[in-house]
């Protein structure tokens, strides 16, 4: 059979003889095992046992948590004593969640479920058996085998390659496995063949394992499996390299062997598959090479997963004083362990304890002389010395351009480097930095999108606010214009009838007015204090009472002054020497003032109302009742004032003369009405949006509420539109006094009424959701009392749902409150 060669490669001393002198033995059963939940590439497994549970050997104790994940089984029988973070064998020396089992010494197995007729089993049955057994690639990477074996679902595979090269020096685990269980291996290969259905099946093995080759030859005699002996050269056991040697095909950069129709599995993996399918035995042990001159009994052992490494080292006659380091894996790609209190995991193919004569401490790094020996050794055909310069200068972009990510970290470059530069370490550094940069770029991109969305939202809100403010200002301007329009009527009349008495009267009136203004201010202050007290939940009730008294007093005073003022005006009217139009105009003027006052009062009350509403929205249950009372009072006050306002504005309406500049007024009113229409439209839109949101959430209560809100908003909008149409119809006929006065009051009162209605509705929803939340919380407390984890979980979910509903309702209320036009 034709073999291909790959570029580069090295021939380090093999040192494999030391560990193949003795037959494969079982390591003694450990007293305790530590089983990390992640011994594979992918998501960590989800534990199924809790502390105190008794488990049997082979029992599933942690389940694959994702598509790419693997099951973990108890490797001894005993009791789960802990599920916590423990140091795991990893290049970084990190800790991870592990299940700790204390042995009962029985090694009591669960009942195994072999597939008796595996030759005729369908793919799904076999794949399930492999997945159930928690098998991962045992050559080193630990990729879940079931996932890899499913590859045929997306790719056509014509070649199944079994990687028996074992090119790393010192390691003989696969060699011994092949010598000891050649039939088992062939069964595993046959199962894989059944799954992958390749046209040929190759076992690639380096020519430095004559005994294993012999065993394989006799085991494959009656099969169509080819044992292909390849020349010994590191790293021919690299997946990509072995595939090239056997098939001449190159796995594309960044691709998978499946892309070129090849699937590659390790010897240990194939044996584990055979055990899982034919014996039903999950992956609870593996063959590990114990070697290095710091051990006296260098050999291969069949060891239970999770066995503490120090127990294995003791078994191998390890002499710590002689060891220069402790390596998991081979001398080329293995990583050093900083402690021996670590468990054996699914990918532990070798524990290497060399002496300092074998592996002296690394020479200090000297400058790169660009000798190019690394380039001659690189199996990926990279320019290692250039990559080194780039990594050193942190020119990561250039490193990527020079295909840094095609580096398989085999270490051939470092091996040949005469300057003892730890090249692989440089590449690892560069790769990590690039990954970090990419992560950060992704994060920055996400943050940018978030920021832009936020800016857009803020702008939208700002625009809405400005629109609302403009509307309010327009309304205020319209009101003051109306007041001014009324005022000239008074002043227009006075010059005609001005007398001394009248002058004195006017002075008195002025004084009264000043007093009244002062009283109004006092009242306002009292109101403010009162609302603040209402907002401040800490305020004592006594304090509040005093404030309320103050407020009342201020109100009474104001009323008294107003009475006086009115009385004075009446007197003046009576005392008027000339029955001139002033008779009509004077009270009219006073009425205007009263109107103005009322309007101001109304505005203040509205503000107070708004504040209380806000407080209500933010309030906790304790002070809610109180606040609601305040709110009600404020509302009542507003409606009172509005009633007064309605009466007051109706009065001047009777006086046709007071309408001085009707058309200008009319326009203002029209504007107001338009704004009201726009506002109600906006409110409707908002409600619709909220509805859509509610629908997307799928909350029926919410949907109903929102629908109601929309109906209200629609009604509002329609009404406002009607009004607008009416006004527009009226405007051209200008001086219709009645319509003027009526329209002066109605849009506002109407709007306020509608908003109040919406507000009320929203409040009802808030109250309802609050009750629901309370109930849910109570249920949760009960569930917690009963200590039923599932019930607690369910109740927690209910509480969460109620909470979101409640906050949603509160938000609606707040929205309605803020959209309320003063």
């Amino acid at each position, binding site marked *: 059979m034709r073999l291909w060669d*790959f570029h580069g490669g*090295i021939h*380090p*001393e093999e040192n494999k003889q030391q560990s193949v002198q003795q037959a494969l033995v079982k390591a003694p059963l450990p007293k305790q095992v530590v089983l990390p939940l992640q011994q594979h590439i992918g998501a960590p497994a989800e534990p199924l046992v809790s502390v105190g549970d008794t488990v049997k050997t082979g029992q599933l104790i942690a389940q694959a948590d994702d598509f790419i994940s693997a099951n973990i089984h108890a490797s001894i029988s005993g009791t789960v004593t802990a599920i916590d973070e423990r140091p795991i064998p990893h290049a970084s*020396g990190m800790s991870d969640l592990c299940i700790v089992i204390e042995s009962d010494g029985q090694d009591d197995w669960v009942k195994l479920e072999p597939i008796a007729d595996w030759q005729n089993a369908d793919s799904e049955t076999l794949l399930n058996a492999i997945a159930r057994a928690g098998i991962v690639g045992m050559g080193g990477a630990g990729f879940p085998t079931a996932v890899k074996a499913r590859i045929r679902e997306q790719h056509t595979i014509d070649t199944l390659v079994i990687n028996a090269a074992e090119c790393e020096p010192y390691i003989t685990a696969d060699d011994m496995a092949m010598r000891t269980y050649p039939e088992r291996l062939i069964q595993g290969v046959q199962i894989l063949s059944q799954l992958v259905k390749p046209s040929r099946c190759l076992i690639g093995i380096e020519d430095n394992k004559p005994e294993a080759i012999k065993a394989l030859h006799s085991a494959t005699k009656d099969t169509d499996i080819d044992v292909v002996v390849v020349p010994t050269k590191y790293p021919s056991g690299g997946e*990509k390299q072995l595939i090239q040697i056997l098939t001449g095909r*190159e*796995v*594309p*950069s*960044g*691709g998978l062997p499946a892309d070129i129709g090849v699937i590659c599995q390790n010897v240990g993996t194939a044996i584990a598959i055979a055990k899982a399918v034919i014996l039903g035995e999950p992956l609870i042990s593996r063959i590990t090479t114990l070697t290095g001159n710091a051990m006296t009994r260098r050999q291969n052992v069949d060891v239970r997963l999770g066995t503490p490494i120090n127990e294995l080292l003791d078994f191998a006659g390890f002499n*710590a004083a002689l060891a*220069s*380091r*402790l390596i998991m*894996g081979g*001398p*080329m*790609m*293995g*990583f*050093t*362990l*900083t*402690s021996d209190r670590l468990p054996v995991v699914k990918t532990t193919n070798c524990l*290497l304890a*060399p002496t300092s004569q074998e*592996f002296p*401490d*690394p*020479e200090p790094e*000297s*400058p*790169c*002389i*660009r*000798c190019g020996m690394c*380039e001659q050794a690189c199996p*990926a*055909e*990279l*320019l290692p*010395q*250039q990559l080194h310069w780039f990594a050193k200068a942190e020119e990561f*972009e*250039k490193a990527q*351009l020079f*295909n840094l990510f*095609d580096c398989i970290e085999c*270490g051939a470059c*470092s*091996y040949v480097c*005469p*300057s*003892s530069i*730890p090249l*692989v*370490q440089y590449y*690892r550094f560069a790769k990590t930095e690039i990954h970090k940069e990419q992560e950060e770029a992704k994060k920055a991109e996400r943050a940018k999108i978030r920021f832009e969305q936020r800016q857009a939202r803020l702008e939208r809100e700002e625009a809405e606010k400005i629109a609302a403010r403009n509307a309010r200002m327009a309304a205020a301007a319209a009101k003051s214009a109306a007041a001014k329009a009324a005022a000239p009527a008074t002043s227009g009349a006075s010059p005609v009838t001005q007398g001394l008495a009248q002058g004195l009267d006017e002075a008195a009136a002025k004084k009264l007015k000043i007093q009244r203004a002062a009283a109004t201010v006092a009242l306002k202050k009292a109101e403010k204090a009162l609302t603040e007290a209402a907002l401040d939940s800490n305020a004592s009730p006594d304090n509040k009472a005093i404030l309320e008294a103050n407020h009342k007093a201020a109100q009474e005073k104001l009323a008294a002054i107003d009475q006086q003022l009115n009385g004075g005006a009446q007197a003046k009217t009576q005392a008027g020497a000339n029955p001139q139009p002033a008779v009509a105009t004077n009270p009219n003027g006073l009425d205007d003032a009263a109107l103005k006052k009322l309007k101001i009062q109304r505005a203040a009350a509205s503000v107070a109302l708004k504040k209380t509403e806000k407080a209500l929205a933010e309030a906790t249950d304790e002070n809610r009742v109180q606040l609601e009372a305040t709110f009600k009072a404020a509302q009542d006050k507003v409606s009172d004032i509005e009633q007064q306002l309605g009466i007051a504005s109706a009065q001047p309406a009777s006086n046709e003369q007071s309408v001085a500049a009707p058309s200008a007024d009319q326009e203002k009113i029209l504007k107001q009405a338009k704004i009201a229409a726009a506002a109600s439209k906006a409110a409707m839109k908002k409600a619709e949006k909220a509805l859509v949101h509610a629908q997307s959430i799928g909350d029926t209560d919410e949907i109903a509420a929102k629908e109601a809100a929309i109906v209200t908003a629609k009604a509002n909008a329609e009404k406002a539109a009607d009004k607008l149409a009416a006004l527009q119809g009226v405007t051209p006929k200008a001086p219709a006094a009645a319509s003027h006065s009526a329209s002066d009051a109605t849009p506002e009162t109407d709007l306020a009424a509608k908003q109040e209605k919406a507000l009320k509705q929203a409040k009802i929803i808030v109250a309802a959701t609050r009750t629901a939340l309370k109930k849910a919380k109570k249920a949760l407390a009960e569930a917690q009392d009963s200590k039923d984890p599932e019930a607690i979980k369910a109740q927690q979910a209910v509480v969460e749902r109620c909470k979101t509903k409640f906050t949603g309702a509160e938000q609606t209320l707040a929205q309605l409150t803020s959209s309320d036009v003063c």
Partner: protein
Amino acid sequence: MAFIRVSSPHLHRPLSTNKVMQTVILATLPGLAALTLLFGWGSLINVIIASVVGLTFEALILKIRQRNPLPAIKDNSALLTCVLLGIALPPLAPWWLPVTGTFVAIVIAKQLYGGLGNNPFNPAMVAYALLLISFPVEMTQWVAPAALLDHGLSLGQSFSAVFNGTLLNGGTLFGSGTDAFTMATPLDGFKHKGALMADEYWQQNSAQPENIWQTWAIASTAFLLGGLYLLWKRIFTWHIPVAMLGSLLVMSLLFYGADASNYASPMVHLFSGATLFGAFFIATDPVTAATSNKGKLWFGAGIGVLVYVIRTWGNYPDAIAFSVLLMNFAAPFIDYYTQPRSFGHSKARKGIKNEP
């Protein structure tokens, strides 16, 4: 118990930089021996002076740069530079020539650029070129092959000639009567033959018969042997020497074939002067050469062409130094455009820009 943390790989080939340099120095020995045999003690004296002074400079400059000079001295790189410079200089050159050259090579061309691995130009060749431009007379007077002299110079006489400029018997090496001891190299002579035809030139120079270059050829062959040893030891790859000699051969064949009476034969080009020494010991300096295999081919070929061009139409009889220095300039550029096709890629990347 705790163990130390070491990053993989844990195995290293026992071939360190100082071993590499040491091997190259060893490989120069046949050539140096041949030079000594053919031209007397001059080259050996050059090498010794350059080495002693060079290592001193290296240590001094590292002290000034506040680095530990010991590792740098031990890595043999300075020693190699000095040996190569010593070999390149004419035998029996006055002592200040190697001293100046060593200063330029070690201090200016190597350490001022940051020391080993950071120099863009071949230090020995920078020194050689500078000396050639500054002291053309001393740099172009080669001792006549010992075979042509009635009596060879003894070691004592050689030292005297180097340090005093006088021979023991009172005569001077340079100046009046020096023709007895020094002569132009065949390349130099041939270059300045003027309007003479090639065969006329060889005839007219009885002192420099046509086969004089064969003397040089012996030395060249010795260097070739050393180079082959290095190839066998895999200190460098075949690419640069083969490309350089190949392009020089092609160039000289083309012109010699077209006009044999005015152009030197390929044998003269390949085996006289510093061609083989340059091909195996100068152009292959990894620090200043191109790095990829393809790049090395371009680099070597460029040197070969330049050598021929400068020898034939330039002002200098030999051109290894200038050619190598010119290609040193081009090496980074060549590197960017000769990246190998990496495993799993359909084609090699050219240049350093992102492909659109």
